[in-house]
């Protein structure tokens, strides 16, 4: 397992969280400590062990393809931070020509 330092700014970018310089330093140190603890897993021989994603047996679940009641559009839209009619409003994503 890797013991290299975490590039906290890069990971925060992936996670879409803005960090202050102070947070970069503090979280960097704390995550480094935690990684040292989890690196203990390297001592386990897991070469022949299957991974467990879900403990209790999982199976595909299907339901009949019929229309059933659901939340109304107004209920869903009611708590949007910003909306315009039936749309969630967000900052411009596509640049103007």
């Amino acid at each position: 397992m890797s013991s290299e330092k975490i590039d906290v700014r890069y990971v925060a970018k992936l996670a879409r969280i803005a960090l202050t310089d102070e947070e970069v330093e503090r979280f960097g140190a704390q995550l480094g400590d935690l990684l040292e603890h989890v690196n203990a897993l390297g001592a386990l021989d897991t070469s022949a062990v299957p991974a467990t994603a879900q403990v209790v047996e999982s199976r595909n679940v299907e339901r009949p393809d019929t229309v059933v009641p659901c939340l109304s559009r107004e209920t869903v839209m009611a708590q949007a931070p910003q909306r315009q009619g039936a749309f969630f409003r967000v900052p411009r994503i596509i640049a103007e020509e």
Partner: protein
Amino acid sequence: MERSLIERTAAEIARGVNRGEHSAAEAVDAALARVGEVEERVGAFLTVLSDDARNRACAIDERVRAGERLPLAGVPLAVKDNMCVTGTRTTCGSRILERWTAPYTATAVRRLEDAGAIVIGKTNLDEFAMGSSCENSALGVTRNPYDLSRVPGGSSGGSAAAVAGYEAAIGIGSDTGGSIREPGAFCNVIGFKPTYGRVSRYGLIAFASSLDQIGPLTRTVEDAALVYDAMAGYDPMDSTSIDRPVEPTAKGLLESLSGLKVGIVRQFDTRELGDDVDEVYDRAYHDLEALGAELHDVSLPTADYGLATYYLIAPAECSSNLARFDGVRYGSRVEAADVQAMYENTRAAGFGPEVKRRILIGTYALSSGYYDAYYVRAQKARTLIARDFEAAFAEVDLIACPAASSPAFTFNAKSDPYSMYMMDYYTIPMSLAGLPALSVPCGWVTPPGGALPLPMGLQFAAPLFSEKLLLGVAHAYESATKHALKHKPEVGARG
């Protein structure tokens, strides 16, 4: 002397309502009066639902007058604030959901309401259920009713404190790595995590989906069984809920442990926890023997890797689950000129430090180049931990061990994140294996310099789907020892 309504168990309240000895409205009024009396000191609730609760109580009284008999008739219920209740603010203890109102009700809550229980409020928690003391809540401070200078545990600390402080007869919480069992132990109540998938997670705001499980916090094992019986069972709205019959647990709880084989885990050496704590567990194991159980040494060689495994799997799942909080569809938003900055600033302002730490570690563990080294390796370790339990349960019927590494600690005592994570050392392995487990009061210790005795919890863990056995054993232990009744909370118990 007849006990006041707030001191009665859920079983007693339901019996009283069903027999017409008192009304659901009286039970709810008594609970709300108690909330008014102690809440300033305890701080268990983020939202109290006085009007809704009174209205629902009247509806229950009408149903009972019309001849219905309900297993939880008129029982005041405290719901952890990461479960949805229609029309009610549901915050997860987070700034990002501080003003969000749930448009639907969680299946677990709805089933309890159908059984006659009445939600009196939404309780405090560590933000998004990440923590072991409630100190990670962005929205309030909850104090331990048995010593107000100490934490109630977490993350379901608000529900534990509400029940321990006689503000509600029953509470529900969610347990991902110990979040029901540890606060149960800290607050002198039963904290019960059923088998993964036994209770629907629909309407429970997700933290780590392969581990999260809803369960009761109650003052007696019988009440935990009543709550479980009402909540458990398949739900088409949660595809991971288990589609197999639920054996009712509340009737025929055991009184003796004759012939039962109880495993004591060799790797969990309680001498490391200090003499007074060691003595409590030593006595608890002897008490099990006195009740007829045979004690056997069992080995869980991989359990020591539980924390490392958990702190990869749970953050990985949380980083994925919490991606939905982006300021677009619900929750708070911090405006910015472009959408990337809007996401980043919204999440920076909306999440507290522990949630950010876990999202970052999870994102890292899932990121390109590290996925196999961390996430997949942790999932393989999880297999080994589950196999350890399987091997142990070939020899014994269930396992007894501590529920937490110490009694309730004082505020700000665990400033280093890893020292807080260590609180769940004894509960995480069972979570990773999906097992049913519970914490039951097992004695008291008075810490050096502390004036008040603090409760301790004994954890029982059983094979998958063995809820009936687990609750039965806990009931036999509880009725023989009665540890919970030996001290009253600091906030008193009159009503």
